[in-house]
């Protein structure tokens, strides 16, 4: 270490700011994420595989009631986009933070001058980039293989893209903060997947992802309305389905106001609960 003495610079500058460190963290997060191949396959390609399976099996069929229907792949795609966002935000963070808490990553970061905000900026960067890539892949698959019309090809394409943007961003944000909050629930890193996955699966079944939402029992629709996935899927349907498909919604309209309200509510609740329950150390670590 004596050699390092020669490179020592006398004047100390200020510690780097949270924004710059957030970028550094994003880089490290992305590198680690894409190297963990099992997680990449599970979180990243799962919606692609589901879309491929469902769209192939139900090829040529329509989803609809009372004589009105849309092609299966077109109805299925918005649910898969919403699911993808939930996987890359909620599931990915709930599991990865639980694992990082368990294996000591968080404790190690806490012992450095890294600000807490920079750690979360890194997570946000990871969620945004993986969600964008995943949604992009889904759209490419749907447009090229299953001939699903894309919103920008429709007459009101501008408005549809605007809707897509806010549903996507709000969905990512509420999913991410809920993931941070939920990460305190699993007792260990090993149990994290087992605790998080059933929650995600149940929400997918009751929120109109695998089954058409209008075909579900009313009580199930009511339960699903409490959670954000139903609203994200509905918001995405308003982007990808024709305007008249609103008749397939139980409310008979796209309910953009309610969608925004529910997603913002979960964002706020997730922020409060996450900020109060977040721990840098394991529960059994003093």
């Amino acid at each position: 270490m004596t050699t390092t003495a020669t490179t020592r610079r006398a004047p100390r500058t200020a510690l780097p700011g949270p924004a710059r460190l957030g970028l550094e963290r994003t880089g490290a997060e992305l590198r680690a994420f894409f190297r963990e191949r099992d997680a990449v396959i599970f979180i990243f390609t799962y919606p692609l595989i589901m879309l491929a399976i469902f769209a192939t099996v139900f090829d040529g069929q329509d989803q609809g009631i009372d004589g009105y229907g849309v092609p299966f792949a077109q109805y299925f795609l918005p649910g898969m986009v919403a699911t993808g966002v939930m996987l890359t935000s909620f599931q990915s963070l709930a599991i990865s933070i639980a694992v990082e808490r368990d294996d000591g990553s968080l404790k190690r970061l806490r012992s450095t001058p890294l600000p807490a905000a920079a750690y979360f900026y890194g997570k946000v960067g990871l969620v945004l980039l993986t969600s964008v890539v995943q949604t992009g892949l889904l759209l490419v698959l749907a447009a090229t293989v299953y001939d699903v019309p894309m919103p920008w090809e429709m007459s009101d394409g501008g408005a549809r893209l605007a809707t897509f943007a806010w549903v996507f961003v709000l969905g990512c944000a509420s999913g991410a903060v809920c993931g941070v909050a939920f990460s305190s629930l699993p007792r260990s890193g090993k149990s994290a997947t087992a605790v998080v996955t059933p929650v995600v699966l149940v929400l997918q079944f009751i929120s109109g992802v695998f089954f058409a939402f209008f075909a579900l029992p009313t009580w199930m629709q009511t339960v699903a309305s409490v959670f954000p996935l139903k609203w994200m899927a509905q918001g995405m349907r308003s982007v990808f389905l024709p305007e008249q498909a609103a008749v397939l919604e139980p409310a008979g309209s796209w309910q953009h106001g309610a969608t925004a309200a529910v997603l913002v509510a979960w964002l706020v609740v997730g922020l409060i609960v996450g900020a109060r329950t977040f721990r840098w150390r394991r529960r059994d670590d003093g």
Partner: protein
Amino acid sequence: MTTTRPPTRRTSARTTARTTPDGPAVEVRGLRKRYGTKQAVDGIDLRVERGEIFAVLGPNGAGKTTTVEILEGFRRRDEGEVRVLGEDPQTAGRAWRARIGVVLQDSRDQAELTVAELVRHFATFYADPRDPDEVIDAVGLREKARTRTRQLSGGQRRRLDVALGIVGRPELLFLDEPTTGFDPQARRAFWALVRSLREDGTTILLTTHYLDEAAHLADRAAVVRAGQVVALDAPDLLGGPAARRPVVRWLEDGAWRSERTDSPTALVARVASRLGRPDGEVPGLEVARPSLEDVYLELIGDPAALPADGPADPVPPTRAPAEAPGTPDGTSAVVAEEARP
């Protein structure tokens, strides 16, 4: 082992230290911490001077890690005053964390990144970090720089931990049981690394349950037992002169006798004249000074340790240090031998 060091060493360590506020690196008074019914830390006082290697020595569960984690700012104390680099770890902020380096006890995190990526990444957290490549060289991981963390051996992993702990150029480095599970060779290499850090002006607070580690590295050591400091001194002075009084053993009337005394020569002469054998010999005579390990085991209350005073139970005169208990891998016994005055 302090005696074997060049006399200028302490001085050079101090002069290379950065310009920092005066006062000790660590000051602890009356520290207490309780978990449920267990009083893990029960009134500890410590003072670590700048530029020294200070060891907190004790068996598992003695309160070492709890104490150190309070100093690192991870745990809240119940009672007592704590100053680390002049600040209270419970309220200290980023600027303070930039001045300390922490090597935690067990680490299995960040498995997917390579050694070089991690050291470079952690360097970005600091205002004035060491050069990451120099740090990787210093911990001897140049060959492994492009290896992912999960593929490192235990010893390499620990050296990476140290690299991440020192890349921010800390004034004070905490090492919590850094060599647990090392083979003897890796341990020696690690000790050399720690000593080189001190040469560079870093104050080091080290916890260990290996006596030889404290003996090799530390300027001073505190022996902790049941949450209290039971001895504090240079490792080869621990326990004070009384604990080092020689023990004279001999065979008399078919039974082993032993006695502790400050004047073993006089005692032997008395025994020899009392026995009055024609050849003047005392059968089975042995004069032994308690080894550092004997002293340590006595301090931490190991039942196998020698009693403090009075005649001991019959002990075979051939009792070798290697037979002493409490040396899981046998290495401390070897060093205890070296550490004898």
